[in-house]
C-alpha cells in the first residue's frame, strides 16, 4: 500500500492567521459551491455556482501562496490546502455548513441555503477586498484589487436570487426565510475583533472584521427589503472557525477535499 502524506503544521503568527482566515473561507466556500456541480436546479445555475467556485479557488490559491510566503517554512499552496489538519484551518464556520437536505429531489441540499450563504459571504468578501486594495502589503493589495471585481459580480448574482426566492412563491419565500434563520447566528463571527484583526489594522495590512459590520448590514438589508425578508434579531452565539475550532461538518469536507493528495502525496496531472 502506498504511503500516505503526513500532515504539515504551520507556525501561525498573527499575519499568517489573518491571510489564512480569508484564504480558507474562500477555499471551503468554493468546495461547498462545487458540490452543486451536476446538481444545480437549472443548467444556468449549475454553471454559475461552479464558475463562482472557480473564482474563489483562484483567490484562495493566491492567498495560500502568500500565507506560505509569510510563514516562511517553504510550503506551497497545495501543501497548505491538502496537508493541514482541521485545527489549522481558519475559515469562518458559515462557509463549512452543509446545505440542508430538503427533499429527495434536492441531492445537493436546499438551494436556498446556498443562495443565502453565497449572498452573505460575497457581500462580506466584497467589503474586505475593497478595503484591502489599499493594503500596505502590495501582494495582498494586488490580490484584493482583482478579487473585488469577482466578488461584486457574485454579490449581484446571489442578490438577484435572494430577491427571486424571497419575492417568489410561498414555498420559495418560506425556504429562504428558514435558510436565513439557520445561517444568521453564524454571521456574528464575520464581525468579531481579536488581536489578529487589531494587528492587521494597525499595520494597514487589511481591515479588522468589526469595521465591516455597518456597511455589510446596510447592503444586506437593502436586498432583504426587496426580497421581503427581515433581518433576524441579534443572537449571542459566536462560532469559532477562525480560531481553528470547527463544526462537526468540517472533518467530512477535508476528508473529501484532501483524499487524493493524502493517498498520492505530490500527485499531479
Amino acid at each position, binding site marked *: 500500500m502506498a504511503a500516505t502524506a503526513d500532515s504539515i503544521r504551520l507556525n501561525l503568527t498573527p499575519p499568517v492567521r489573518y491571510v489564512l482566515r480569508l484564504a480558507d473561507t474562500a477555499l471551503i466556500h468554493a468546495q461547498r459551491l462545487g458540490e452543486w456541480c451536476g446538481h444545480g436546479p437549472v*443548467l*444556468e445555475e449549475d*454553471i*454559475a455556482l461552479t*464558475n*463562482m467556485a*472557480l*473564482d*474563489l*479557488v*483562484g*483567490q484562495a*490559491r*493566491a492567498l495560500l501562496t502568500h500565507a506560505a510566503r509569510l510563514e516562511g517554512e517553504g510550503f506551497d499552496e497545495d501543501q497548505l490546502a491538502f496537508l493541514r489538519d482541521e485545527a489549522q484551518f481558519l475559515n469562518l464556520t458559515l462557509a463549512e455548513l452543509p446545505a440542508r437536505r430538503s427533499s429527495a429531489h434536492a441531492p445537493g441540499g436546499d438551494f436556498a441555503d446556498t443562495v443565502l450563504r453565497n449572498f452573505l459571504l460575497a457581500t462580506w468578501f466584497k467589503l474586505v477586498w475593497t478595503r484591502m486594495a489599499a493594503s500596505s502589503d*502590495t*501582494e495582498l*493589495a*494586488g*490580490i484584493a*484589487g*482583482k*478579487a473585488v*471585481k*469577482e466578488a*461584486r*459580480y457574485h*454579490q*449581484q*448574482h446571489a*442578490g*438577484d436570487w435572494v430577491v427571486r426566492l424571497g419575492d417568489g412563491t410561498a414555498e420559495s419565500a418560506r425556504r429562504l426565510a428558514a435558510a436565513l434563520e439557520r445561517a444568521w447566528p453564524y454571521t456574528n463571527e464575520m464581525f468579531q475583533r481579536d488581536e489578529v484583526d487589531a494587528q492587521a489594522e494597525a499595520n494597514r495590512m487589511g481591515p479588522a472584521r468589526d469595521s465591516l459590520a455597518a456597511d455589510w448590514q446596510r*447592503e444586506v438589508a*437593502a436586498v432583504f427589503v426587496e426580497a421581503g425578508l427581515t433581518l433576524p434579531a441579534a443572537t449571542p452565539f459566536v462560532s469559532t472557525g477562525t480560531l481553528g475550532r470547527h463544526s462537526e461538518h468540517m472533518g467530512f469536507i477535508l476528508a473529501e477535499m484532501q483524499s487524493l493528495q493524502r493517498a498520492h502525496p505530490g500527485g499531479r496531472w
Partner: protein
Amino acid sequence: MNATALPARDAMLERAWAVLDTVPDPEVPALSLRDLGVVREVQADTAGGGVEVVLTPTYSGCPATEVIAESVRAALEDEGLGPVKVTHRLAPAWTTDWISEAGRRKLREYGIAPPAHLGSGTQPIRLRPRGIACPRCGSADTERLSAFGSTACKALHRCLACREPFEHFKPI
C-alpha cells in the same frame, strides 16, 4: 550599453510584440493575447539574453493562465527570441477596458458581444445589463439568459430580433 546594441534591442522587442499579436487566447481564439490586453510589458532580459514578458491574469481562477504562459514561451522561442522569462503581475488588475479596438471588432465578428467601456467610475451593486447589441444582427433588443457562461469571462444572452443566442464578454 553601446550604440549598436540599442537599435538591435528595439528591433527584438518589436518582433516580440509582433509575435504576441499572433498568439491566440486559448479560450477565445479569435483574440490574440495582445488584443486581450494581458501582455503588460515586454523587455530585454539582459541576464538571460532573451526577452522577459509580463502577463496579468484575467480572472483569479482562470484555468487558461498556465496555458497562456506556455504558449507565449513557445511562440517566442520558436522565433528565436528565447530564452523567455514569463512573470505574472496582479496589479493593476486586468480590466476589459484593456481589450484593444481591433480585439473588440474581432470579438463581434466571432459572434461575441464585446464589453462596454467602464472608465474609472465604480459600478452599482445591482447591475442588470440591458440592450447589449447582438453581434449578428446589431439589434439592441436582447436579453440575458445566464449570468455565467462557458468561460469565466462571458455571460449568455439571446437576441429577440434574430432569435440567435450569443455570448457577451462581461465588462470588469
